[in-house]
């Protein structure tokens, strides 16, 4: 499901370059380190129309609560849909408009705070949802226009700094203007969404997350996705992308660049504000810190990972990152993820190079031997309890986990693994393969002993690692179109 028009690249495989296609392009278009068979699948999948994908996708998500009854999992699903909405909004500004907007989360916050002020006991205002939500979208759009103004005179890095300042401003105001925003204590007891008949959508149903919000979020998602997609295939969308490619040429070809920039900021902000209202209605409270850097970076990660400029891509990015961050909260699940990723990457690389396969085997043996030696010297070195489950027990016999690790172990091991990894990138040939064995083992050691005990920073480190690897393999993101800057 490609975003603009599928360019229909052909790989130089059995078919050779397509007739008349520049050979260089044909050769380079598929440099994505994908196995040949996968890129064929990818091409076939692009034939399916976008609305069919959307229906399938939303249909599966709708059926999700039927299969999954855990309130926690449902809530994660809800949050994922929120992130998908946010990523779609950011994609307008960054992916299409090409404007680096680091103040984006502030609009999310503005939407949430606006809902909290318009529908809560805080001021005693209880607007009907059908009035307040459209109003919030308008407020968000207006705020977007205001933040868009500096983009008339600033581009690139300078615009990024000004928008970042806007986020900081929002943060400072919400934290300090206590009588209005409640300061750091936030606004509590925000109303849930209400239906026209005075019926309230409960956020909880007998103590469990209410599925209705997931459906509301999905409905918003479908509307936003379709509206933005149609917009992208209109003169406004084409003008946005022209603006991203070359603002001067766009202006000379009759496109009012300044107005288009405002429009892009405004559309993105409106989507973010809409999402904010949904957030406030479900969680029934708003705090300043929810709308800060961590959220901003998470949304950016989704957009970049999925492929900035491609709607399906950014949705996919959100779909991967949001559950991943949740999984990484839990030590047992994140352990499985880590080792699965390790084994998986060895399996993929090992199929192409026998040497990597040997390295994998050597690492396995290396671990058991080192573990046995360590236990032989002192039982306390391997007394750490990695957790329950058969998988954990296997890991227990492989990775050294000291019962009471000395305090200096953590920083030394951390720095050591980074240094070793860097060294490996500089080495070549057999020496590198030999060096890889202890490096991978050290990585596993750090994971087990340092990172697992502190899941919160660890999960963002893992996120960063995934992003680095992916950017090396697929610089345009998972579904991003190939981009050229200078040819």
């Amino acid at each position: 499901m490609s975003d603009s028009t599928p360019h229909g690249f052909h790989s130089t495989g059995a078919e050779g370059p397509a007739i008349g296609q520049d050979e260089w392009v044909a050769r380079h278009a598929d440099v994505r380190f994908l196995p040949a068979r996968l890129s064929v699948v990818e091409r076939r999948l692009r034939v399916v129309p976008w609305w069919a994908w959307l229906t399938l996708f939303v249909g599966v998500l709708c059926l999700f609560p039927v299969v999954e009854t855990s309130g926690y999992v449902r809530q994660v699903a809800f949050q994922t849909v929120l992130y998908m909405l946010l990523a779609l909004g950011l994609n307008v500004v960054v992916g299409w408009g090409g404007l680096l907007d680091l103040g984006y989360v502030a609009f999310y916050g503005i939407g949430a705070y606006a809902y909290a002020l318009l529908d809560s006991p805080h001021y005693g205002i209880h607007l009907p949802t059908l009035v307040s939500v459209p109003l919030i979208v308008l407020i968000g759009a207006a705020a977007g226009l205001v933040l868009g103004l500096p983009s008339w005179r600033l581009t690139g890095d300078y615009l990024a700094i000004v928008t970042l300042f806007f986020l900081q401003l929002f943060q400072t105001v919400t934290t300090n203007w206590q009588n209005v925003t409640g300061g750091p204590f936030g606004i509590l007891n925000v109303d849930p969404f209400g239906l026209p008949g005075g019926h309230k959508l409960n956020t909880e149903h007998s103590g469990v997350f209410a599925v209705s919000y997931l459906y509301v979020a999905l409905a918003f998602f479908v509307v936003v996705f379709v509206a933005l997609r149609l917009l992208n295939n209109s003169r406004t969308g084409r003008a946005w992308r022209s603006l991203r490619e070359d603002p001067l040429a766009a202006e000379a070809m009759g496109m009012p660049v300044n107005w288009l920039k405002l429009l892009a900021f405004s559309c993105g902000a409106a989507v973010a504000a809409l999402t904010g209202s949904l957030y406030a209605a479900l969680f029934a409270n708003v705090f300043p810190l929810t709308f800060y850097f961590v959220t901003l970076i998470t949304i950016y990660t989704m957009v970049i990972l999925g492929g900035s400029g491609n709607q399906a891509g950014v949705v996919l990015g959100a779909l991967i990152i949001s559950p991943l961050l949740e999984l990484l909260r839990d030590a047992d699940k994140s352990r499985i993820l880590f080792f699965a990723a390790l084994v998986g990457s060895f399996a993929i690389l090992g199929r192409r190079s026998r040497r990597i396969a040997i390295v994998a085997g050597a690492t396995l043996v290396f671990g058991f031997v080192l573990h046995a030696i360590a236990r032989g010297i002192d039982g306390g070195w391997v007394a750490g309890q990695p957790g329950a489950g058969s998988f954990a027990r296997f890991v227990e016999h492989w990775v050294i986990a000291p019962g009471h690790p000395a305090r200096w172990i953590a920083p030394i091991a951390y720095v050591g693994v980074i240094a070793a990894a860097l060294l490996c990138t500089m080495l070549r040939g057999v020496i590198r393969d030999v060096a890889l064995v202890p490096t991978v083992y050290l990585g596993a050691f750090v994971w087990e002993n340092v990172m697992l005990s502190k899941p919160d920073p660890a999960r963002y480190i893992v996120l960063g690692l995934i992003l680095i690897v992916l950017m090396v393999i697929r610089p345009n993101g998972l579904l991003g179109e190939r981009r050229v800057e200078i040819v």
Partner: protein
Amino acid sequence: MELLELTGVSLSFGGLKVVDALDLHVKEGEIVSVIGPNGAGKTTLFNLITGIYRPHTGDIRFDGQSIVGLEPHQICCRGISRTFQTLRLFLNMSVKENVMAACYGHTKAGIFRSMLRTPGMRREEREIEEIARKRLSFFGQRLMGYRWEQPAYSLSYANRRRLEIARATATNPRMLLLDEPAAGMNPAETHEITELIGQLRKEGGYTILVIEHDMHVVEGISDRVVALDHGTKIAEGSFEQVATNEKVVEAYLGLNTMSSK
């Protein structure tokens, strides 16, 4: 009738006078070439006409109305379109979309109509696509067929130049400013461009102002030639008149060559 009139236009960057009290007139339906050595102010002249720079003195009138102080997109909508010497295509958009994007100025559908896909918007969209098809088929099969949906960066250099011209004509201009359309082209392509410019006027009815270094092209297309040096007009007239003008020869070759004995 004069379509474009520049009277006493000057522009300086700091102490450097790039364009100095320049007068220039282009009649409707005319093809005028601007020649001059590097740094003579030819591209600056284009930037002045299209509103990227604003003249410090003087007036630029298009179709009888002053266009000084208008934004470039407004000038484009008045009917002046241009190509760039250093190609400025929308490289990551398809060939088709490059041309369709340039229809922005003379189409109307707003964001809500686009989101709702109203019948009027859909009709307009079909018209835009039709314009793109027409403008691109002007170059025969070169930009049609499988290239239609390809990204612009996959085009060869000559095809990119052609696409720039197609994009410029999609704004429905009355006047085209072509900045070195034959730069970097091989002799066959240069010959093709020469014929093409004449054909553009015949089929599209455009008035054309063109900057060109290739004297064969200039000779082949121009009704009138204007020679610039150091921002001032040093000669004007037919190709023969200008090419044999002493000042022009001097500007290109330096003093003390043929004429001084």
